[in-house]
Every structure is written in C-alpha cells, then in structure tokens.
C-alpha cells in the first residue's frame, strides 16, 4: 500500500478497495461536500467560540487565558466545563482529572481513524491529533467513507477550516467584547454555560445507558453539591453517573451511535452527510 504523497493526496482505504488515481472527480466532489459541511460546522463553532469567550470573561478569565484554552487545550466542551470548574473554585487536580475523563472519548475517535491514516508520516499524525475534535472526526470519517479511502488534505481542511480557526477567532471576539458588557447577567450571559452544557449532554445521549448516566450524574451532582459544595458534586456526578449507566444491560441499551463509528459521526455533527461507500454496500 503506497504512502500518502507529500502534498497530502489520498492513499487507499484500509481495505484497499479503490484506486486513488482513477477518481479525481470523486475526490473533488467529496472535498466540495466537505467544504460545504465545514462551513455549516464553522458557523456553529463561531457561535460557541463566541459564547465561550463571553462565559470565560464572565468567570474572570483574561483574554490571554481564554485564548490559551482555545489554542492549547482546544476542546470545546471541556473548555466550557473548565469555566464552570474555575468559577466554582474546583482545585486544579480535580479539573485536570475531569478534563481527562471528559476528553477520553477522543480515544475512540483516534482509534477509529487509525486504520485510515496509518500511512501518514508520524509527525503529521501527531499534528493531526491535536486537531481531532468531535467535528473533525465527523467531517473526516464521512469524507473518507464517501471516497472509500483516506485523504489527508481533506482532514486538514475539515479540522482547521471548520473548527480551529473559527473557534479561536470567535473566542477572541467573545472575550474582548465580554469585557465591555457592564452587567452580563442582564443579557443572560450567565445562562449560556448551563444551557450549552445540557445541550452538549443531550447530543451525547445515544442510548439508554447514556440517558441513565446523565440523569444519575445530574442527580448525584446536585445532591453532593448541596452537601459538600459544587466542586465535589460535579466530580461525584461525573464519575458515579457512568458507573450506574453501565448497570443497564447491553441488551436494553438501545445504543444507536457508538462513539468512534460513522453512526456517531452522523449523530454528532452532520446528519445526513454520511454516504455509503462501495465497501459498505458489499458488507451489508
């Protein structure tokens, strides 16, 4: 199996079903689709990057600190969560632990992309990893499956164009503008954070186990927060909720979109954009 060319042109699929030299038109069409989808996701990233900037500012983050979160950590929901953790006075080790847990789902994304990208040089894969978000996964796995093979340049287009640039520019705008709002609560800025959190949680519920984990996590979180403080409540809910969710038998879970699969790509960011590849059809 030949490696990707230095310019990032495509390499064959893990199953080696297609000849990359014979379908430039398909590549261009799929990249156009990728670009269109990226614009939609980019608009969403602008909205939430801006909201993150406002929320971070309201929680006392300086512009440099908010930007450091967006550039270095670059993890949307974990960043929103960090704003809440910092505002509630959670100790840093606990913030780090919760961030690790919250972002552990990326293991599944990287494992799912691994067969497609194994021919990409190690250094570039290391760079790709930093940009691996829910959105980048959704865009790239759908693009690869449309093509029936990997396309490194497509990955970069999706990851940078749809998320990294809009998210960071919007964060900067939000944190700078947030400083000019004298009474943020009057404009409802304090509700952005919990609304975004519950919305993101709903987006992750793809079966009964997730539903149970979310409800139990919230219930334990509130109960423990009232007894021991918000910071401890959040940790307790985040750790115990999944444990209770696992008690739901797999046969009753009704999981519709396991993370790391094309179904989750469709569910999380791009409804209707996944197109069956020829190898999918053969498998079915």
């Amino acid at each position, binding site marked *: 199996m030949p490696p990707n060319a230095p310019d990032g042109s495509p390499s064959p699929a893990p199953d080696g079903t297609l000849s990359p030299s014979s379908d430039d038109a398909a590549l261009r069409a799929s990249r156009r689709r990728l670009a269109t989808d990226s614009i939609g996701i980019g608009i*969403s990233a602008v909205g*939430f990057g801006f909201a993150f900037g406002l929320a971070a500012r309201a929680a006392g*983050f*300086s*512009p*440099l*600190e908010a930007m450091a*979160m967006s550039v*270095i950590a670059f993890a949307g929901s974990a960043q929103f969560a*960090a704003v809440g953790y910092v505002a509630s006075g959670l100790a840093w080790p606990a*913030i*780090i632990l*919760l*961030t*690790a*847990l*919250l*972002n*552990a*789902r*990326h*293991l599944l994304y*990287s*494992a*799912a992309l*691994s067969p497609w990208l194994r021919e990409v040089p*190690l250094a570039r*894969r290391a760079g790709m*990893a*930093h940009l691996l978000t829910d959105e980048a996964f959704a865009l790239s796995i759908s693009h690869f499956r449309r093509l029936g093979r990997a396309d490194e340049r497509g990955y970069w287009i999706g990851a940078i164009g749809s998320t990294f640039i809009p998210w960071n520019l919007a964060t900067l705008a939000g944190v700078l503008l947030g400083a000019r709002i004298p009474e943020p*609560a009057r404009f*409802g800025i*304090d*509700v952005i954070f*919990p*609304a975004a959190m*519950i*919305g*993101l949680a*709903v*987006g*992750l519920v793809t079966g009964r186990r997730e539903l149970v*984990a*979310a*409800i139990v*996590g*919230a219930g334990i979180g*509130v109960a423990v*927060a*009232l*007894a021991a*403080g*918000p910071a401890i*409540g*959040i940790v*307790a*809910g*985040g750790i115990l*909720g999944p444990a209770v969710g696992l008690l739901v038998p797999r046969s009753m879970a009704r999981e519709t979109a396991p*993370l790391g699969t094309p179904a989750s790509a469709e569910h999380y960011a791009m409804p209707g954009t996944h197109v069956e590849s020829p190898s999918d059809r053969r498998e079915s």
Partner: protein
Amino acid sequence: MSTNLVLLAILMFAVTYPSRALGLLAPGFDRLPRIAFDYLQLVGPAVLAALAAVSVMVVVGADDIPSFHVGIEWVAVFVCLAIVARRGNLLLGVLAAVAIVVIARAAGLAAIPV
C-alpha cells in the same frame, strides 16, 4: 493581565492530547477492554449533565453554604434541552435560553443574580 490559567490550559492539553493521539500513533490501542470503552462513552453525558444541573440548581451564598435554587434559569435550560432533543440545534437552544432569561429579567419576572 492575568496569566495564571495559561498553565491550567497547558495541563488540560497534557491530559487531552494522549486521548487524541494514542489511537493515531499507537495502532492496536483499540484493543482496550470493552467495558473501558463503554465507561468512557458514558462520561461525557454524566459530566456535562452534572455541570448543568449544579449550575442552575445550586447557589453558594455569602456564608459559603450551598443551597437549592429555583429560578427562571430552570425554564431556560429546559427549553434548550427540549430544542436540542427535538431539533438537534444547539445554537438555537442556547439562543432561546438566553432570550427567555433576558425577557424575564427585563420584565421583572426574575431577579438578576449578583
């Protein structure tokens, strides 16, 4: 300008990057026990739901004692939840939540938190 939280951002990167990179840089990592993956899949909903619930239901007073809070924020967050569940549009849900809170506070139906 404060820079204390830049270190926190770096530490968050340090615990996030391995999750993103392990699968790409260490093939075979996907052979973790199934239950580990199952647990990881449930962490996101639980943490985010706990954060949302604690944010709107628990307030810490000047005496540093947490207390249960009922307010317009419940309605706003529930409407966001319903919109996301029904329409799958997070941005719309958040905008609706903000609009509800702004209108209620402007109309004097809800107190502005201090």
